[in-house]
């Protein structure tokens, strides 16, 4: 992926470049808000990561100007302001996602991949297929290796979210936000437990794992084909 990162903190920019290189992505850095805006208008990027507090400009107004000038590249806003109200402001200004510092590299890359996936218009059809898994969205039924999986309604929602992001890392924060509509992580380990249940249903009686725990805070749906 080709990513534009508008950030005035040189250290954060250098860290991000290194992380991008590790992940196989190209990160272009602009340290100046207006220069970043110009570049976003001239070059094609898959995703723009924008710091909210820049030396010369406010990230919120930059996003708004970007949208006004007709640039629809997905924007992930990165900020030291991480409260619910701050997020809402960022999304209202036109950002597509919002991540608070400090963040897990895994979280950031999972989010920008999800943004890119959504923006490149891979609309999901009524049936999603991935490896041995089948998800019939309308009929609300799930199969692994042609065998019906009996999932409760909320397990189905969770499964569908994994299918929509098949093969990619899905983080706990993304699950809370997209499946449960929550913008914070409760103290009780609700996500892990819910994933644990789903994992048992997806794996019980089958050969091979279905869900992989990615070190830290994420999960990834595997293709579920027998080893």
């Amino acid at each position, binding site marked *: 992926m080709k990513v534009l990162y508008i950030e005035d903190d040189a250290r954060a920019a250098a860290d991000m470049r290194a992380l991008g290189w590790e992940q196989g992505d190209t990160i272009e850095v602009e340290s100046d808000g207006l220069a970043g805006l110009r570049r976003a208008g001239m070059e094609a990027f898959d995703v723009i990561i924008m710091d909210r507090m820049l030396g010369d400009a406010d990230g919120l107004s930059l996003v708004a100007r970007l949208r006004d000038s007709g640039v629809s590249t997905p924007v992930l806003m990165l900020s030291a302001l*991480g409260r619910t109200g701050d997020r809402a402001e960022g999304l209202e200004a036109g950002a597509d996602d919002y991540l608070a510092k400090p963040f897990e*590299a895994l979280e950031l890359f999972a989010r920008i991949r999800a943004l890119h996936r959504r923006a490149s218009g891979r609309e999901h059809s009524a049936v999603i297929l991935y490896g041995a898994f089948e998800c019939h969205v309308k009929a609300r039924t799930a199969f692994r290796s042609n065998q019906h999986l009996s999932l409760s309604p909320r397990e189905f929602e969770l499964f569908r979210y994994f299918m929509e992001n098949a093969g990619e890392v899905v983080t706990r924060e993304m699950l809370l936000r997209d499946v449960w*509509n929550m913008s914070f992580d409760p103290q009780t380990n609700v996500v892990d437990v819910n994933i644990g249940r789903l994992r048992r249903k997806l794996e019980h009686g089958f050969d091979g794992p279905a869900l992989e725990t990615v070190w830290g805070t994420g999960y990834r749906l595997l293709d579920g084909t027998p080893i």
Partner: protein
Amino acid sequence: MGHRLSPARRDADLTVRHSIFARITLLSAALSAVLLCGLWWVTDRTINETIAASLREGVDVDLAGLVDIHASGGREELSRRIADRLALVPSDGARAHYLLADATGARVAGDLAEWPGLDPAVSESGPVRIGRQTEAHARATLLPGNLRLLVAHEAPERAPILSRVALVFGLGGAVFVACIALFAQAAGGRVRQRVAGVNAAFRSGDDQALSALAATDSADEIDDIARQAARALQRDRQLMAAYRETSEQVAHEIRTPLSHLDARLAKALADDPAPATAAHLVAARGEIRQLVGTLEALLDIAASKAKQGQRQGMALVDLSAMTARICELYEDSAEDAGYALSWDIAPDVSLMGDEAQLGRILTNLLDNAFKYNRPGGAIRVVLAPGSRLSVADNGPGIAASERERVFERFWRGPSAQAGDQAGAGLGLALARAIAERHGLTLRVMPSEPGAHFMLAPEEG
């Protein structure tokens, strides 16, 4: 739940029913009407009394004259003069009547047939009746020679003058009251317009309008109050802006170095350190997250308190759906932890609010119930119509003396102090701050056993 009037609705009502100026107009009209009635009554009394006094005086003068005549001219002269006077008809129609009688009461002269009940020995005076209807004032006296003399004057007709006075007061008074009301209305209308202008400036909250108000330099009371209020509001806004700026800076200045620190720890972890070192690094990263969480919760509490009563950013939240979703999210965790979580949710309960924040109240209460319940305990969530949400457990509960303290920042239960429970002790403080921001109260209800939290609309 739409129980409260929207601000705009309340303002419209104010114009007629609660306007000070309408009340002042009504009150001044009523007061001047009452004053006029009083004045009328006093005038009426004075006229009556003046007439009665002059009547008494006339009788006394007449009687004294006749006594003099008797003294100088004797009985025959007196009789003749009485006959003269009776022949005279006064222009106002108030006739005089006389009776001269001997010791037995037989008439000697005059037009009255019989002696009325007045005692001549003490020169008694008083009202008498002439014929059937006519009222008169009379005085009797004894004359030398065993004669008695009675003089009675008919009261003059009072009705015409009194009705004239009534007419003057009635018509004049109506005009007067109307003038007062018109004046009050006009004066009040001007003041009302100005007050409405000031109110509109406050309501719009427009910075420019506020500065214009704060800068007015004319000197009357309305300008003064408007100026003071505008300044107070400006100060309030400056404080809000300063608060916002400071909290953003604090967040930024703490989070940025923490995120650099976190990045370094992540790099160190990526270098495949020895397992013991890796465990420390992971723990250190966890602590960074906890520190950030505490900072956020504190700022969230402050923001909720600052925003109390503001409706900005609120929308209709389906509490029933939200509660059901969160209960289901916690269901498996409850089963894993060995708690019996149950819920009873009334359908279609909704509330104006911020869904993410309202959800936080419930999750914080559930987190709390998970933390402090007894092993194998039950947790029950009930949502009742009227936005009444309760979360109860049957654990050790909360001592009566602690029921307010649990909402203090950094309060932690006895079991948490033993060190086995995570969290900075901000969950309930945050839940209460969010509740208050939404015009709700969050309290610990007295219950036995267990802790019972109740979220309900503020009373009144």
